[in-house]
């Protein structure tokens, strides 16, 4: 369906270094550019990275496994809530505490919800995951312990502390921290996708019966992938809560679940970097549209969705790769 995951298997042929040029260019921009930007714009880029990570992790289930989850905000929000509850009830924003706790919370919830959701597939999977996410949303809404006094959600969060005297985190350093973690996670996802495990996921997407007959315990594969994806969503949620200064029930609900799905489709699902590109598109369009026209921005965002689907159906990423191929550049083509 989509280029890179299937073409990764290219055997022992030589890899041309020129193929990596675009990646180096993007990496350089991500590292150098923020130094020249205002703290707000650094914040926007932090937001972009967080959602790129969220979406890339989500895509393991959505693009690779082919299961349309509409409830991944549950794990994203759970990570965020772990950080927020630590701050609200225990007064600590220690990074070394928040991150493991957030990932653990997200993973456990994914492990529980996966058992329920994986009893069905296709359209029903979408509906069931939606239902589970909304359940968590209503719990966060109704349970007093999960809300700052007088409001829905938890406010007053801040950048994490590291427990090292003299080290305070500001928007610049937090950006680089998030960049580091996101890059690490995406590399990890890359390893997973290229491994026998990752290929098995694609195999299950394409033909679950056959994979079973080949000796794969397909349910277990789906379950593990679901949990891994939930864990990555949790990481993104933790990073988001520190950046966003607050977390509210909507971060567990369908509105937030919808974002990584949009990003993956727009960028190109079933590819590793598609969701990252999709995150860049959506975050920047949302931002610009609401600045340019505070009351008509939904028209622009909706228009982008429609245009993408009608003209670049496989996602902008895949579309660009194919255009560059047609133009004769080697970029993007990983075929040996």
């Amino acid at each position: 369906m989509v280029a890179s995951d299937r073409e990764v298997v290219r055997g022992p042929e030589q890899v041309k270094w020129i193929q990596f040029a675009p990646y180096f260019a993007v990496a350089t921009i991500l590292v150098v550019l923020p130094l020249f930007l205002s703290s707000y714009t650094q914040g926007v880029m932090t937001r972009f990275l967080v959602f790129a990570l969220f979406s890339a992790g989500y895509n393991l289930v959505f693009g690779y496994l082919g299961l349309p989850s509409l409830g991944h905000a549950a794990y994203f929000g759970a990570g965020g809530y772990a950080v927020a509850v630590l701050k609200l009830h225990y007064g600590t924003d220690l990074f070394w505490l928040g991150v493991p706790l957030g990932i653990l919370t997200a993973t456990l919830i994914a492990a529980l919800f996966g058992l329920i959701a994986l009893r069905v597939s296709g359209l029903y999977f979408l509906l069931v995951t939606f239902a589970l996410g909304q359940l968590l949303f209503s719990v966060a809404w109704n349970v007093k312990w999960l809300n700052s006094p007088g409001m829905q959600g938890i406010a007053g969060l801040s950048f994490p502390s590291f427990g090292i005297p003299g080290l305070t985190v500001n928007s610049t350093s937090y950006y680089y921290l998030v960049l580091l973690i996101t890059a690490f996670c995406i590399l990890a996802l890359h390893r997973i996708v290229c491994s026998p495990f990752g290929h098995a996921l694609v195999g299950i997407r394409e033909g679950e019966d056959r994979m079973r007959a080949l000796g794969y315990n397909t349910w277990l594969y789906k379950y593990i992938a679901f949990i891994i994806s939930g864990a990555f969503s949790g990481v993104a949620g933790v990073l988001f809560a520190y950046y966003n200064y607050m977390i509210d029930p909507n971060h567990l609900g369908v509105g937030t679940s919808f974002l990584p799905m949009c990003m993956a489709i727009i960028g190109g699902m079933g590819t590793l970097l598609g969701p990252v590109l999709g995150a860049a598109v959506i975050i920047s369009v949302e931002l610009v549209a609401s600045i340019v026209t505070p009351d008509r921005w939904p028209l622009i965002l909706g228009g982008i969705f429609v245009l993408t689907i009608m003209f670049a159906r496989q996602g902008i990423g895949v579309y660009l790769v194919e255009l560059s191929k047609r133009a004769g550049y080697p970029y993007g083509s990983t075929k040996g």
Partner: protein
Amino acid sequence: MKKIGLALLVVGLLVSLGLVSPTQKSFAAEPIKIGAILNYTGPAAMLGPLFKNGIVMALEEYNSQIAGRPLELIVEDAAGSPNVCLEKARKLVERDKVKIIIGPLMGDAQLALGPYLANKGVLATGLYCAMFELTKYQNWLIYPTTALGLTLPLGWYAADKGHKTMVMIIADYAGGHAFMKGVRTGFEEKGGKVVQEVLVPVGTADFGPYISNLKNADCVAFFVPNTGDSSRLVTQYKEFGVKMPLYGTTLAADLPEHVMKELGDKVVGLQGQALYIWSLDNPVNKKWVKAMEKRFGKTPGGLANNSYCITSSILAGLKATGGDETFSKLWPAVLKVKMDTPQGPLAYTKEGVALANGYIVEAKRINGRYSWDPIKVYPAVRDPRLK
């Protein structure tokens, strides 16, 4: 066709890059930037333009400049979510370098912004009263008074009418609780007793089940936000033929005259609290209503008045500092402002809470025109928690 699609996408991306890059500094006098977070989409989408009219009016009275520095208004969409409001506030503070933010409307959004804006030393305001909890940050202008102070008179009024027991319908969010706590405090001060509190979610489509299950009492008081919830509640209340008298909060703002017209005779006789009505009989108001009608082509309501008064008091403070919007200078200057607004006399306490008049109004139909008529005034209402 494909090329068009791609071209549009690429243009979109380029535009976004262009806008994200830092704004250019001009060599003329630095403008004084004022941020406003108003509702343009979401459940309260109709309110954004009304608030904006009031702000624009206040700015234009100063010819959009103070001490040679132009006044620049930057409007953001609150989209009805605390999280979005916080995002927009960060954009205003960190990108646009705004030192003054007007809005947001909803109490929970204000609480979400509280810690951040306090930390950044920004002069903040609510749009339609604000939460008392914000006074601890010492940077919030709260006009006309706190949420609790606003509805206090309604409690007094209900007790004065001889009601002994009351049922309350409360929108289940920060603002809703604060408003109804005001009614309760006033009512209990004068010996009344609240026998039931019904919490309803914001945006409840069907109040029928709640209304059918109200306990018996002498009267019912409610707060639900926005025109939509309020009008549905009033309509459905009448439909179910409940006999207990109904008192509303923030009425004139939530059910302006054109909405009353649509509600028809269902609304006539409804009494409740309001903070401003265009027909208030004072010279400042008469002049202001004329000016607003001339400028925007329609009679202003409580929302436009509210944003107008807040903005005017800030601008008066700015004038006093000679156009210096630094928080440490502007804050004390604004607190010293005393002025006559269309709503009545305005003065701030040292916590930044205004002491304005509270009005009780009744819906009337005179010569086919529906309107809110003030039937009682409680001057300079004070939140009992203030020192």
